[in-house]
């Protein structure tokens, strides 16, 4: 498997003067998967992508991209991939259409039908000059150029920033089409709903290292499920079961978090006491994400996020129960 990885990074270190932007980063992306790359601003997502693009030189570690060396074989590898940055800058006096054609021709040609179809789907006006496009429209120009390219890999660094929800939907469709055609995607994003919808696997980066990687199911398994239950009998003792955290008892209602591998034991205990209503929610990606960053500011932050998540879920109780 490892020999076939589209991206394989081990122990990558990149420093800028005294700042260690990447500190032993490991990342593996398998062919045909959409890989989510999560982390807050400054965690090292863009630096990683720029090393993969051969724009930055690594200080240590090994990096393989499409079985090649992204630094030495940059140009030939680039013909097999496309990249969309989070903040697209266009030539001020070239129109969007000219920029799309130029970038396509530099790769060796662009399919006019594909180009026309993408421009229509994104509702892009290709006759405007780069300087007069809004943020979202600049993003669309780069997306059209990227999806029009005939490539194996897409490196997307917060590609949908500034897009309206309809165009975000278009983007989601295009990524799914690309995957259906056998393509691989590395998607760095802040929009967790987008990642949750699209990604097969996720890597979470923090301070230049990957702190968690796996399928969403794997990641969920490592964390806690939230349970909101109203019992027929007394809830006494529920909060002392192994793996149960943050239990709040109000009369016969219990809200708590349970480690996912202890869920079965908790459900057994609840069943004995008689369940009237039950809402059982797997952790959202947002919770996974916040849990990793929550302990950066101490445990309190983690608890707060738990409460917030509970509040959100309250609205869905009727429906689920």
């Amino acid at each position: 498997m490892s020999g076939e990885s589209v991206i394989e990074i081990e122990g990558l270190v990149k420093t800028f003067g005294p700042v260690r932007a990447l500190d032993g980063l490991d990342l593996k992306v398998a062919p045909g998967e959409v890989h989510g790359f999560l982390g807050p601003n400054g965690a090292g997502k863009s630096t990683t992508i720029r090393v993969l693009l051969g724009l930055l030189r690594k200080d240590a570690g090994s990096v393989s991209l499409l079985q090649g060396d992204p630094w030495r074989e940059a140009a030939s590898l680039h013909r097999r991939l496309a990249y969309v940055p989070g903040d697209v800058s266009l030539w001020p006096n070239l129109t969007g259409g000219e920029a799309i054609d130029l970038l396509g021709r530099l790769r060796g040609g662009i399919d006019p039908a594909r180009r026309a179809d993408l421009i229509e789907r994104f509702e892009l006006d290709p006759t405007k000059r780069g300087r007069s496009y809004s943020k979202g429209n600049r993003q669309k120009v780069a997306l059209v150029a990227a999806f029009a390219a005939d490539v194996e890999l897409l490196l997307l660094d917060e590609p949908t920033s500034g897009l309206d929800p309809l165009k975000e939907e278009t983007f989601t469709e295009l990524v799914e089409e690309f995957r259906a055609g056998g393509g691989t995607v590395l998607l760095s994003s802040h929009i967790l709903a987008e990642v949750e919808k699209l990604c097969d696997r996720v890597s979470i980066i923090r301070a230049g290292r990957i702190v968690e990687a796996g399928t969403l199911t794997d990641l969920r398994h490592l964390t806690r499920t939230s349970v909101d239950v109203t019992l027929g009998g007394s809830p006494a003792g529920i909060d002392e079961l192994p793996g149960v955290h943050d239990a709040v008892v109000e009369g016969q209602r219990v809200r708590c978090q349970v480690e996912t591998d202890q869920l079965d034991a908790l459900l057994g205990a609840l069943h004995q006491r008689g369940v009237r209503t039950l809402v059982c929610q797997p952790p959202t990606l947002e919770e996974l994400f916040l849990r990793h960053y929550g302990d950066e500011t101490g445990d309190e932050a983690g608890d707060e996020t738990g409460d917030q998540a509970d509040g959100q879920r309250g609205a869905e109780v009727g429906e689920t129960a």
Partner: protein
Amino acid sequence: MSGLSGSLLLLRGHLRRDRWMILWWSLASAAVFWSQGGAMANLYATQAEFDKAAASLEGNAAFIAMLGPARALDTVGGQAFWQSSAFCAVLAGLMSMFVIGRHTRAEEESGRDELVRSGAIGRYAPLVAALLAAVVANVVLGLATAAGLLALRGDSPLRGMPLPVADSVASGVGLAACGIVFSATALVAAQLTQSTRTMYGIAGIVLGAAYLLRAVGDLGNGVASWLSPIGWYQAMHPYSGLRWWPLAVMLVGAAVGLGLAVLLFGRRDVGSGILAARPGPPTAGRSLHSSLGLAWRLQRGSVIGWTLGLAVSGLAYGSMGDSVEDLVGDSGFAVDAVAGGQADNLLDGFYGTALVMLALLAAGFAISSAGRPRAEEEATHLESVLVAGVPRQTWLAGHLLVTVAGTFAVLLAGGLGLGAGYAAMTGDLDAFRRYGVPVVAYLAPVLALSGLTRLLYGVAPRRLWLAWVALGFCVVVLMFGDVLELPDWMQSLSPFHQMPLVPAEEFDITPFLLVAAVAALLSGAGQMAFRRRDIG
């Protein structure tokens, strides 16, 4: 009035941002007047020599077209004003255009204007604050100019010394008023288009038209000069029967411009222009096919502009024709200063020096063109091109090719312009070969400076400005090297110092090839270093 609230607050911010820029423009203008005035005393030892030069200048139509109506050229003040006023009026016009542009249209284009307007700022405050900033800038420039002229003292046998105080003050005040008129026209231009570049284009055309109208009027019956703010300024006749009333014409002109700008502003939305932005081509033309095509597209405007600029500069030198000998007089200092010490063949010496000057100007293009890749990198356009599969070396080589070919074109345009000017004045077509073509010898030192720029780009892109320091050094060595008694080894660091003063001295292929080899080495080293460094 609430429409103006916040104007002074904005003005304070503008002046803080502009203070250095205003200072440099003002010093430049003051230096032009001051040095032109000072040069007379050095160039001409006696009034008789001065009269001879004045008589030859008065009849030269090319000079009148370039500078203005010839008045009182046998006085130091008259000469200084004649030689400086049109040039400095253009200087004040350019300064005004940039001050107005950066505080109005550029702010709107970047969206910063919206942020400002969301505060407690009156509707007309940004407009008025920008104009006030330009007024302040022009007043400072005018005062500096007057101060420069007032500082001209010293004993001189020439007529008109010491300069009359009122005329010196009027030269400064009139220049400020002229600049304020151009501020108002720039403010009108800022209402017209959405793009700052186009606004500068329009304001620049207005400035150019003012210069041309003036030239046409000065050569003819004078009517067209009255359509030009530069003509209004020169109509004050400092040092030749000073009159103040044209000042009122200029102030009325500025007020009309301001009124028009306010009217236009009231008819448009913030962020848009009166002229709607035209759509561009939806697909790319054939020239945008490679990174070389892109490099040419990006630098095209600058190559054309510099080529025209050098051609006009060359034309200006050449149009002095063979009257140079009368102008220079007999003093040893003058021969040194303008003809590289070539007293035996003054004409060849003079045009040899002119060619070096043109080459130094061309070096300005070569350095800015070699620095263009840095701008592309900073704007993250470079990564888009690289990620589309273009190797780094190919991309940089595309820009290199444009720089080298562009430098050749710019340099040659200067030489041919000079030849054309000379031929037009004297009817001697051989001037192209004798005074025009030799400029090509300077391709090597000019490219050496561009090679240095490329080396800096590869090794230390943040220190790109050092290339301009190197050009400044070459200028100092050339113009003042002997006066300052700089040691030989230091002078020989300038690539221009290695070259013979063609056509006064014989062209020599050895130093040409040597300097060209250094240029290639520097450039190649920069290219190698660029392959190995981080982008961004």
